[in-house]
């Protein structure tokens, strides 16, 4: 009889070329994709050559994205991007993204069909766990691991124990994937899934569009998780089919798969969540927020810079005006999203409401550029981290939320929901 496995275990077993794996076991897996960005690639490239690497293991399986400081914010960042660009040229990498083809890696890569169901992926960026939303095993590593993987096409993993989150029921108005994941992190803490796999299931997850599923898996790392994953279904297939240029395989967890723990949330219990400074686990329901004035609102980042997110924000901002004294910054997650948002009139809605619309970049999410906070300033943001100094001065504060709440807060000048306007 074959062993019952979770989807994460199946993905690792396949890539390791074995029939079954068990939590705690070490495996060496063949990789379908290795990625890095303008911050992490430069070190990975140095290490690649230092290791004696000459050619990458497979040109089609390396993706390099200039997103953190793009368009280059200063000479130093330009040098980093140049290094990555030169490496891509020398190695003949077709999937190098910069300039007008650019986007935030975790939005761009699945949209380009580069992360597919059945894949095992590593990336020199912690939010590489995002691609679990298409049914891949995907996790973040550092630059040296990425450099070695670019040379060898493989890496080692310790098979993680599984945590399963079953969310049943119907989500309320203004509640989405962001709230499910902030709520989950609020319940289990920022190390609640340390070294573990997080699988999301249940009717509330099944009914979510891909955008929300990406948001959920994106923040698995914020609970310490190794990967986040959602078993692919018809919604996934509808998303990947037109994008894929190679074969893919949709796997699901077996009935008898073993999890270290299973958590059950009721969708009706989840209101829009706000994570207070300085940890994502400080999540509170909107009704418990109280009076929190803001100086800046940001809609964007790999969590919530998708077209669906911009539509929600535009729906709230339409016919309204951003409060005096508040900077409202909208950052489409990729060039294509920016174009589509322009075609749909969303950009005009934002500009009319007094928002600023940036070209795609990570920018303020990591306190890089395009909206850095001063001492004592406070932002509400659809980003994924609110650590000390994350968006600028160590004395500034970041509150995490979904796009509807961020947009409504921009109008009110304080944290609130669209129904409070």
């Amino acid at each position, binding site marked *: 009889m074959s062993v019952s496995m979770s989807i994460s275990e199946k993905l690792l077993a396949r890539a390791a070329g074995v029939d079954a794996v068990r939590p705690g076991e070490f495996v060496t897996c063949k990789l379908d994709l290795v990625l890095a960005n303008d911050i992490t690639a430069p070190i990975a490239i140095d290490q690649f050559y230092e290791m004696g690497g000459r050619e990458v293991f497979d040109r089609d399986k390396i993706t390099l994205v200039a997103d953190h400081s793009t368009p280059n914010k200063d000479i130093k960042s330009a040098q980093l991007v140049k290094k990555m660009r030169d490496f891509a040229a020398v190695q003949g990498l077709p999937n190098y993204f910069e300039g007008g083809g650019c986007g935030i890696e975790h939005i761009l890569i699945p949209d380009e069909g580069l992360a597919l169901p059945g894949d095992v992926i590593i990336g020199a960026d912690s939010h590489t766990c995002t691609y679990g939303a298409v049914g891949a095993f995907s996790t973040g590593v550092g630059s040296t691991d990425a450099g070695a993987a670019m*040379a060898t096409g493989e890496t080692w993993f310790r098979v993680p124990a599984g945590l399963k989150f079953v969310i049943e029921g119907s989500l309320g108005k203004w509640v989405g994937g962001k709230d499910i994941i902030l709520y989950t992190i609020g319940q289990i803490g920022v190390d609640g899934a340390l070294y573990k796999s997080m699988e999301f299931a249940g009717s509330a997850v099944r009914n979510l569009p891909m955008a929300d599923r990406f948001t959920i898996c994106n923040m698995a790392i914020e609970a310490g998780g190794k990967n986040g994953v959602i078993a692919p279904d018809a919604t996934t297939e509808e998303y990947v089919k037109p994008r894929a240029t190679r074969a893919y395989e949709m796997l699901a967890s077996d009935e008898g798969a073993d999890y270290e723990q299973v958590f059950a949330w009721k969708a009706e219990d989840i209101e829009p969540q706000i994570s207070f400074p300085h*940890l994502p686990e400080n999540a509170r329901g909107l009704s418990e927020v109280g009076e929190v004035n803001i100086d800046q609102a940001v809609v964007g980042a790999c969590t919530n810079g998708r077209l669906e997110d911009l539509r929600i924000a535009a729906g709230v901002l339409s016919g309204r005006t951003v409060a005096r004294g508040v900077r409202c910054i909208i950052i489409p997650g990729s060039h294509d999203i920016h174009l589509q948002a322009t075609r749909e009139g969303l950009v005009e809605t934002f500009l009319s409401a007094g928002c600023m619309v940036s070209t795609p970049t990570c920018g303020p999410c990591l306190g890089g550029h395009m909206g850095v906070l001063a001492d004592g300033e406070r932002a509400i943001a659809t980003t994924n981290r609110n650590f000390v100094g*994350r968006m600028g001065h160590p004395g500034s504060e970041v509150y995490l939320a979904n796009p509807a709440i961020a947009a409504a807060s921009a109008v009110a000048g304080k944290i609130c929901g669209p129904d409070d306007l």
Partner: protein
Amino acid sequence: MTRGKAHKYGDHVDTDAIIPARYLMTTDPDELAEHCMEDIDIDFVKKVQPGDIIVAGKNFGCGSSREHAPIAIKAAGVSCVIAANFARIFYRNAFNIGLPIIEQPQAAAEIKVGDELEVDIDNGIIRDLTGGGEWTFSALKGPVADLIEAGGLVNLTRSKLGADG
């Protein structure tokens, strides 16, 4: 055997605290070291002496994948990090670049700021020369042991690539 003073921090020290993103526009270890721990301990760089040891609570190194974090710590002269446990990407990164890290929750809890510590990595012993405590930790197994043996992932991969080609 390494010896140094303990610099102590709490739980969930994130990589933005270890090296803020505003300093990531360089890959130079010495430049990174100048800003190590800046946002949670502005004086760290002034206080730290070669060989000193960072002691912290749980989930040390959580957050971003930036390898700049263990690089900054190592370049600042820190000889090893003792914590209750580590975030997983930081854990891999530290071994990959040859920064010794030790999971010892009891030692992490009991060591006090400024204590003089002696760490015998080969034999798995931490001694608190000031407080008198002594704790053991076991040798690592699996791929991490291979990494330590080889002296980091660069060496390990170099020998792999050499053997292959």
